[in-house]
């Protein structure tokens, strides 16, 4: 019976393969039916409020994902947004001329002006400097009204003055010779003179006086301070700068009175009781006040002229202070946000008179957002003419909140712009008895809906009906239900973000089902958690009704590889943290094993920095399972810098550690790539859960080829070290690309191939018995894609029927990596127009459906390319038999068919990864792409050959059947009558 079904599948496949060119394409009204996109920004770095009286109120933010965007202040929607690319971090943004926002990016290399209303780029200028340095952006207050403003940029050791009208560089001063690291640029009292202040050595302060208009260097002054400077230079008022000394216990106050430098040192200890430890300056612009962190308390200190200090406020706990905001003439206000229990306390105070506060609000913020990281303050005039304030808060989970009148006006989950990894989880099984009642309730609705659909099908629907039909299709409650569906389309996407927050997104509409900020159970100073990856921990099938699936999140303390590891287990239905622990050992690598214990928890091996393996879950049952497979567990490690690939195997229990779950490993093999000629740049392995339907491939002349299918293969790409930089830095003669296929159990190099005159970046995908990779061909000046397919020659003899009958075949012999493989590798290369950001392949539940490559192109779209275009058997003139089999005549480049863009008209900005998840329905793959934006869709590489489409009109079918039955009866009655009459004649 199963065979019959499979056969019919195959038949259908061959039937549909003739349409496969257009296997995926959408009609206009299908957009949004099974795909969704969400747009995000990332963690905000800077925010500028633009609340002029005319026009819509907006806030411009720049983020750590290199996004600059303008948001609606009322609703938080995006007016416009630009993603600057991964190597273009934003250093600062400012308003100029009231109509542009300028952004400085790439360590001060690019200055761009964006038109405020629509986000069009007005101009861009490339600022050249000499040596890398800190970059600063300053827009001096215009001296006279209607005068052209100058933008001052310090970048790469040069000070530039740039015209705000067209981005022309007016003047440039090179400060490389003085080797001064400029920290601050100050403009004193609307004068023409600006002061650039910086350090040339730890003890020497340099000050340059520069005429803004002419760019003339008026004066260069230096002052030395024996205590030494450390940390940032913060301006307290117009002419006072403050920093700390190297001992970090004294404040160093620098005065500019009449252009002279005066340095004063004043210890912090007398003003703060119980001073111990170190002092840290919190970078802020609080005119008159200074924020320092002492004893992990945020302390606000007023600095008076002659080095006198006065503590204004001490705030316990997590606290953040905003920059000063000019409220009225000579009055500055600042916002202070800190947590008190479950509330967030927001106060806005007058800087000159800290005891009075404008507002004092308690705001309830979801615990899962963590603490406030940044506050941006903005004021407005209330209806009663008093000052009102609103604050933009950046939270620990990178979300963005606008708070006004003690309430959260809007919030954005911008943490989702920086996804680390994704796993999927099934939804709960629908409990019986619930759904029937629901259907009964909606029976009339259901009927109405079908009637509407019927109208649509019969083309008698009015335009309003068409809109209603479309809305009904888009908002179909079916796709966003919180239960498992028959086709496996509904899933939970469990997403780990850079901030350490887990989100569960519903695959139907992308809404956040739950979210959880992961906290190590003792969050302390010495453990700054960094969450690395997420793994499927428990995926119950047998007991799906009683047990919830869970995921394992792995992290480590601090940045170094040998920091202690962190584990957290989270229930995927509720988002509850089942348990979390901090380990004594470090975590370098996590290996999910293909074994599960009796509660269907997957066994994992965690490798620490010393090369020891730790088994999880830590139960005796798990040890029992591991012992039986002990000698069959191998893994590899790559040291990319030295070009060493090592294989490891489990050896014995740890000797020096008393831990039953700890095992020592042995280095089994080592491959060393010559570091002077090869540098590892890319690798790819097969997906662990990939299903291969058949091992054999029937080729045209009734011949069979056996795929070499091994889960232990590693694809590795290396390039010449010289050409590992950007494309164009080397000549074709000096560059080459070498690809390897390595069996990671015994370190066997199965295939090694050199592409001369080619270079990276390489993107590769490995599936079944083939690898597809993308690289740049310097000789042809084009991007190329290559395919390598590997076939097992040792099984090639099995096609002899007589051998099969006599039993002299090796189909039943187990395959071992220690057996010598006889493989045949076939390869072919094609030109490809686009450069590639990510590459992936569709995967289906049984592996029968033909495959498509999902290619993330440079314009952040996803192109679905049929795998048949990348087939080494393609030839210029395929034989008739080959054509019938579906071999496409060879062309030198791969076609880009616009209809096959999976993302249709949308863009997934900042695309970083594409994930494919098999649905239960064999024909369908779910694809999730992430970057700054998120995109989800369903793909059917060979069309939906195994189910009716969703908009299939059952009502029409029913009516047709009813009509036919009626017709049958009617004709029967008629014919009876006629017969009777005939008989009477």
């Amino acid at each position, binding site marked *: 019976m199963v065979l019959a079904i499979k056969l019919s599948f195959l038949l259908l496949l061959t039937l549909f393969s003739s349409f496969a060119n257009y296997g995926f394409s959408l009609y206009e009204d299908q957009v949004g039916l099974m795909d969704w996109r969400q747009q995000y920004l990332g963690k905000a770095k800077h925010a500028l409020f633009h609340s002029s009286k005319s026009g819509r109120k907006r806030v411009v933010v720049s983020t750590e994902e290199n996004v600059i965007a303008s948001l609606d202040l009322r609703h938080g929607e995006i007016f416009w947004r630009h993603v600057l690319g991964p190597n273009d971090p934003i250093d600062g943004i400012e308003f100029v001329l009231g109509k542009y926002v300028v952004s400085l990016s790439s360590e001060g290399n690019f200055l761009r002006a964006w038109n405020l209303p629509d986000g069009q780029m007005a101009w861009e200028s490339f600022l050249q400097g000499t040596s890398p340095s800190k970059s600063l952006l300053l827009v001096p207050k215009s001296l006279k009204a209607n005068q052209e403003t100058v933008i001052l940029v310090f970048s790469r050791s040069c000070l530039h003055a740039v015209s705000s009208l067209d981005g022309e560089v007016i003047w440039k001063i090179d400060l490389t010779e003085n080797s001064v690291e400029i920290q601050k640029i100050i403009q004193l009292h609307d004068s023409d003179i600006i002061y650039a202040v910086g350090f040339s050595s730890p003890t020497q302060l340099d000050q340059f006086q520069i005429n803004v208009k002419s760019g003339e260097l008026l004066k260069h002054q230096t002052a030395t301070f024996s205590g030494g400077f450390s940390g940032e230079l913060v301006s307290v008022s117009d002419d006072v700068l403050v920093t700390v000394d190297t001992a970090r216990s004294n404040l160093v106050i620098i005065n500019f009175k009449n252009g002279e430098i005066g340095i004063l040192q004043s210890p912090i200890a007398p003003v703060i009781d119980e001073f111990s430890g170190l002092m840290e300056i919190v970078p802020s612009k609080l005119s008159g006040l200074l924020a320092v962190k002492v004893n992990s308390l945020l302390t606000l200190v007023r600095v008076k002229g002659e080095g006198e200090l006065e503590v204004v406020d001490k705030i316990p706990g997590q606290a953040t202070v905003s920059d000063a905001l000019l409220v009225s003439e000579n009055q500055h206000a600042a916002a202070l946000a800190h947590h008190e229990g479950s509330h967030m306390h927001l106060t806005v105070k007058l800087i000159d008179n800290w005891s009075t506060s404008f507002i004092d609000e308690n705001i309830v913020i979801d615990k899962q957002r963590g603490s406030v990281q940044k506050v941006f303050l903005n004021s407005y005039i209330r209806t009663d003419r008093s000052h009102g304030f609103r604050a933009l808060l950046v939270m620990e989970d990178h979300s963005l909140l606008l708070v006004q009148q003690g309430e959260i006006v809007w919030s954005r989950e911008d943490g989702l712009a920086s996804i680390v990894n994704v796993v999927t989880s099934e939804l709960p099984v629908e409990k019986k008895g619930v759904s029937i009642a629901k259907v009964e309730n909606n029976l009339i609705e259901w009927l109405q809906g079908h009637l509407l659909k019927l109208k649509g099908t019969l083309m008698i629907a009015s335009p309003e009906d068409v809109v209603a039909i479309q809305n009904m299709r888009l908002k179909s409650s079916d796709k966003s239900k919180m239960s498992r569906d028959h086709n496996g389309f509904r899933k939970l996407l469990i997403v780990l973000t850079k901030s350490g927050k887990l989100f569960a997104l519903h695959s139907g509409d992308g809404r956040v089902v739950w979210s959880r900020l992961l906290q190590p159970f003792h969050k302390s100073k010495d453990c700054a958690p960094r969450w690395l990856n997420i793994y499927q921990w428990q995926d119950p099938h047998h007991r799906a009704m009683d047990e919830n699936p869970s995921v394992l999140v792995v992290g480590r303390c601090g940045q170094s590889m040998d920091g202690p590891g962190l584990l957290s287990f989270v229930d995927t239905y509720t988002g509850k943290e089942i348990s979390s622990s901090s380990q004594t050992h470090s975590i370098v690598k996590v290996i999910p094993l293909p074994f599960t214990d009796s509660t269907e928890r997957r066994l994992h091996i965690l490798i620490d920095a010393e090369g020891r393996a730790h088994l999880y879950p830590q139960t005796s049952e798990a040890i029992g399972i591991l012992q039986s497979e002990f000698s069959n567990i191998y893994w590899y490690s790559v040291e990319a810098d030295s070009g060493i690939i090592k294989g490891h195997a489990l050896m014995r229990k740890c000797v020096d550690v008393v831990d039953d779950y700890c095992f020592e490993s042995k280095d089994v093999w080592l491959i060393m790539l010559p570091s002077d000629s090869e540098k590892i740049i890319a690798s790819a392995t097969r997906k662990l859960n990939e299903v291969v339907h058949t091992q054999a491939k029937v080729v045209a002349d009734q011949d069979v080829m056996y795929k070499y299918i091994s889960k232990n293969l590693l694809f590795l790409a290396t390039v010449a070290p010289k050409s590992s930089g950007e494309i164009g830095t080397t000549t074709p003669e000096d560059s080459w690309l070498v690809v390897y296929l390595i069996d990671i159990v015994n370190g066997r190099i199965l295939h*090694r191939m050199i592409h001369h005159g080619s270079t990276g970046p390489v993107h590769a995908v490995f599936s079944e018995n083939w690898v597809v990779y993308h690289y740049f061909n310097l000789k042809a000046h084009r991007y190329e894609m290559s395919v390598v397919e590997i076939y097992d020659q040792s099984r090639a003899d099995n096609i002899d029927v007589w051998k099969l009958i006599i039993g002299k075949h090796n189909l039943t012999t187990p395959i071992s990596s220690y057996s010598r493989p006889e493989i045949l590798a076939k390869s072919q290369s094609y030109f490809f127009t686009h450069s590639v950001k990510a590459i992936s392949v569709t995967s289906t539940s049984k592996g029968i459906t033909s495959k498509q490559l999902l290619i993330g192109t440079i314009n952040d779209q996803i192109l679905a390319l049929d795998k048949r275009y990348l087939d080494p058997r393609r030839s210029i003139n395929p034989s008739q038999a080959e054509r019938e089999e579906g071999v496409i005549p060879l062309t030198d480049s791969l076609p880009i068919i616009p209809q096959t863009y999976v993302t249709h008209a949308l863009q997934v900005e900042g695309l970083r990864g594409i994930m494919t998840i098999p649905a239960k329905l064999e024909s369908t793959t779910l694809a999730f792409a992430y970057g700054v934006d998120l995109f989800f869709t369903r793909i059917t590489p060979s069309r939906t050959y195994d189910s009716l489409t969703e908009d299939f009109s059952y009502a029409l079918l029913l009516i047709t059947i009813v009509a036919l039955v009626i017709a049958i009866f009617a004709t029967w009655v008629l014919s009876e009558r006629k017969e009777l009459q005939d008989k009477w004649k």
Partner: protein
Amino acid sequence: MGFHCGFFICCLLICSSVAFQSDELLVDDDEFEGTQQIQYTDAAHTRSTPPPSRPTSTRRRFSDPDSDSKVQFQLEHSFGDSDFAPAGLFTARLKTSSHGGQSLTKMRFSRDAFTEEDSKKFTTLLQEDGFYTVRLGTNVLKSSGESYVYSSVKSRCLVRGELDEHFVIHMDGVNILAINYGTPGACPFPRQLKLPSKWSFNSLTFLKSGEQAPRTPVFAEDILVGETGEGEGVKPPEKSFWAKYWMYLIPLGLIVMNAITQAMNMAEEQVSGQAAGQAQPQQSAAVVQRGPGSSAVRRR
């Protein structure tokens, strides 16, 4: 492209050995290699003869000794966790091509025999199915390399009567990228403990350098169009009449068959019709007989 003359497997040599190692042995292999390369064009699956059968002969050189130089490098082995100890010697000729690139040819290998201690170690290794590891220095020109490449195999895989071993050395110029060590045959997982009948190795050695990628086909579009156009022109005659028109022929056949059966039915009907015709008169007769009665009723 000239220096990539040998696309992949360049050279091989085999030797098996037990105790002794001499120049003669190498020369013998030289000759041996010549014959074997004729026999096995793919340079695979060679099996050396045991040492006693080898004749001794004087040294000969095939190639010009001026352009070649001889290099030797040592193979070291370890049993499980033990330290590495010398196990054999590879000898090869260093060939300098006109491009300046260097490569090795005519590799041959002589293995040291297992000492008593080695055999003991190996036996214990077999009992616990441990790893037998071999290693080589990464640069053949430096005799004492600090960096090594190594490879291991489960010791039980090696025992197949004698000890069978199989080296694949991956080279890039004079650098050794990797050594793949194993057994020439299969070695499926539940490995049985078996002691070798003889403590001698059958060694097979391959030298491999990278394969060059096939070049991307570049052809002018018009040629392609022309070819496909031609192909389409040629295509129709290839199809047989049946292949082309089966979809019409089958329904036609069905219709014909249907018609035939109907015709036969007609014939039958006629027969039965006749039968019915014979029956009818009786009926009608009966009606006729009854007729007056019924008419009488109607008339009433």
